[in-house]
């Protein structure tokens, strides 16, 4: 496969992620009938965070923030450069686990609660992704993304798996109704509460990369025609934001229950249908 496009996407991913986050905030504001911040707002936020006076709680806590970012970068790089899909899932889960390990390292009870909930996020999101990977294998005969990317319009043969992905996107992007680990009105950011200034910046950046990774996951189902891919990404994200604006937060237990009772069976049904040759 052509190497230039994925490599340039990887280098530009902070830029794309920042603009994506800015668009999210703008869209969010428009949905609430507000004007909203400029689209480049996330970059202002990031640069401001870098200029604040560093307040160090302990070294371990900060190292984990950077480890979280690095693991997320590796996940994204593996994804874009066409590595193994299971490796992407593994590093994505690991980066969330590192964040929660850092959060366990401080005494703030909000941070501890947030860390536990972050682990529940892993429990909710990762199994669905693994099931999707199994489903991909059935359809394409490989876990290698470089070969999966050669496929054409996977949505045709795995629509239910895509629905399952959309159902876990709120949990993955920390949007309502499944923003249990961040929960700004409740535990004030959860695992990220004790990070400040320059030490919060890597976490802020990792969030953008997570959005780029999610966009990539959506795009994976709609390859072939770039226009259709872009439309699919924007429609899905708009839907996630609309859900974010119109629902209240559910409890952490509900999150795990929903994903396990709805998303995983959806992928399973898709798997069976693929196996018997209906789809």
């Amino acid at each position, binding site marked *: 496969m052509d190497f230039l496009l994925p490599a340039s996407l990887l280098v530009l991913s902070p830029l794309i992620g920042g603009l994506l986050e800015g668009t999210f905030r703008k869209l969010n*504001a428009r949905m609430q009938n*507000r*004007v909203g*911040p*400029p689209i480049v*707002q996330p970059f202002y936020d990031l640069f401001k965070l870098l200029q604040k006076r*560093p307040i160090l709680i302990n070294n371990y806590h900060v190292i984990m923030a950077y480890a979280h970012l690095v693991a997320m970068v590796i996940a994204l790089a593996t994804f874009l450069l066409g590595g193994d899909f299971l490796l992407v899932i593994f590093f994505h889960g690991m980066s969330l686990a590192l964040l929660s390990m850092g959060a366990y390292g401080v005494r703030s009870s909000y941070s501890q609660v947030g860390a536990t909930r972050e682990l529940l996020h892993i429990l909710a999101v990762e199994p669905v992704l693994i099931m999707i990977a199994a489903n991909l294998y059935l359809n394409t005969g490989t876990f290698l993304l470089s070969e999966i990317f050669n496929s054409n319009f996977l949505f045709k043969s795995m629509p239910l798996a895509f629905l399952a992905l959309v159902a876990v996107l709120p949990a993955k992007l920390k949007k309502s109704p499944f923003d249990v680990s961040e929960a700004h009105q409740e535990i004030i*950011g959860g695992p990220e509460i004790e990070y*400040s*200034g320059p030490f919060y910046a890597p976490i802020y950046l990792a969030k953008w990369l997570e959005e780029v990774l999610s966009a990539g996951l959506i795009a994976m189902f709609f390859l072939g025609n770039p226009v259709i891919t872009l439309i699919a990404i924007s429609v899905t994200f708009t839907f996630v934001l609309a859900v974010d604006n119109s629902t209240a937060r559910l409890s952490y237990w509900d999150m795990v229950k929903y994903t396990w009772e709805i998303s995983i069976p959806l992928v399973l049904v898709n798997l069976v249908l693929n196996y018997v040759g209906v789809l």
Partner: protein
Amino acid sequence: MSIFALSRVKSPWILHYDTGGCNGCDIEILAVLTPRYDVERFGMINRGNPKQADVFLVTGPVTKRCRERLINLYLQVPEPKVVVAVGSCACDGGVFRNMYNVENGVDKVIPVDVYVPGCAARPHQIIDGVVKALEILSKKTKENIELPEYIKERFPSLNDRRKVLEEMRKR
């Protein structure tokens, strides 16, 4: 203006604390976030987290019980930061002035940069006050650390102050 200086002004994250006022000003502060006034267009968000805040909005006359907490919150906000006293009672005590349980205003306890008068202060005035505060914020850097009078009196030597700050950070 460089991108760094610009970003300092463009992204003020707010921490809001009521030190015992009647809650009138707090309702007005929340009104500022609604679609009608929409301060997010200036990049302001209500973080509720002192460690990630830049602008510290304080309402109320500072009751004796709130004093310690106010100082603690103030020290947790990393520099550069600005403090905006919102409402008459935060400026000088207002209707609560000279009562036995109040400190008569925020500036008796922590350094204040902008005063927003009014009982209750109107949303326009609050936005105006924060925009004024941003002008001050653009001139501040992370090096100039201001300490509350209270800390200066109790810990005259610089070394002791450093220890207090260390203590505060651990919380």
